[in-house]
């Protein structure tokens, strides 16, 4: 993957995260704070959070070919950094009372689900690319034979 391709994939990840964060906000907000009123400036939150959560994914860029161990280590680092960023960014509402732990637990779970979905999406994209390669390969072989 060239640096340009890497940046493009990060942009895709950013918009995917924006979508998922919006969905997670709607679901979690509906459960935890159904009466809460939001202002227009709250609409920027998914973009800010997605932007900050995309930054840790930069640790997965390698100039040289990584080993499997290095790759997994970087993925885990990325996940932990993302969890850290989200935990720092989002604080529980004042009226939550004794449910602070539950709030952080749900938040951590939501980040995990989003992370797994994003990773699966990237993998699916790669699967589609490999299928396209195979189809092009068959065409090339047919034209040569």
């Amino acid at each position, binding site marked *: *993957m060239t640096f340009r391709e890497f940046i493009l994939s990060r942009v895709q990840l950013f918009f995917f995260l924006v979508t998922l964060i919006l969905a997670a906000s709607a679901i979690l907000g509906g459960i935890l704070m159904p009466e809460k009123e939001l202002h227009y400036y709250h609409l920027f939150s998914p973009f800010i959070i997605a932007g900050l959560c995309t930054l840790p994914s930069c640790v997965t860029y*390698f100039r040289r070919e990584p080993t499997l161990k290095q790759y997994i280590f970087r993925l885990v680092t990325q996940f932990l950094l993302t969890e850290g960023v989200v935990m720092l960014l989002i604080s529980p509402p004042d009226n939550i009372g004794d449910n602070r732990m539950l709030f952080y637990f749900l938040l951590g779970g939501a980040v995990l689900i989003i992370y797994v979905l994003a990773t699966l999406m990237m993998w699916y994209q790669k*699967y589609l690319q490999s299928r396209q390669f195979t189809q092009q390969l068959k065409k090339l072989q047919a034209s*040569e034979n």
Partner: protein
Amino acid sequence: MQTKITRIQRNQPEFLEIHCHTVNDEVREIIAFVKSRQGQLTGTADDRLYEIAVSDIFYIESVDNKGFIYTKEKVYETRQKLYELEEILKEKHFLRVSKSTLLNLMKVNAIKPALNSRFIAVLYSGEQVVISRKYVSELRKALKGDH
């Protein structure tokens, strides 16, 4: 070694004649180069010299500065360097897919995704060859016909 080129009539077959004191590595290299240009590579296996048709080669690998040619049934050792073979075989749909591997695209059955941004080429022989992240863009170009 001196060289002499003689032009011949179109109806006469072209040939290369080498006059040498001994058949040494240098001479063998020249012979191997000429044959590779004609769609054949020279390789050794079981202390015997073989002519290998390029169309029979699945992939060529370099291990510890030694070149190995893989066909469906046999592995041959070659004296030619990987970069030399890459140059000679690029017209014949061979592509560098990693630092040490030259792959014959005509022998690839499917391409599968792999971890750490790599792909795996599954050959008709059932063998699998790793396509490094760095060479994926080259593969894309080659399959689009830009190579």
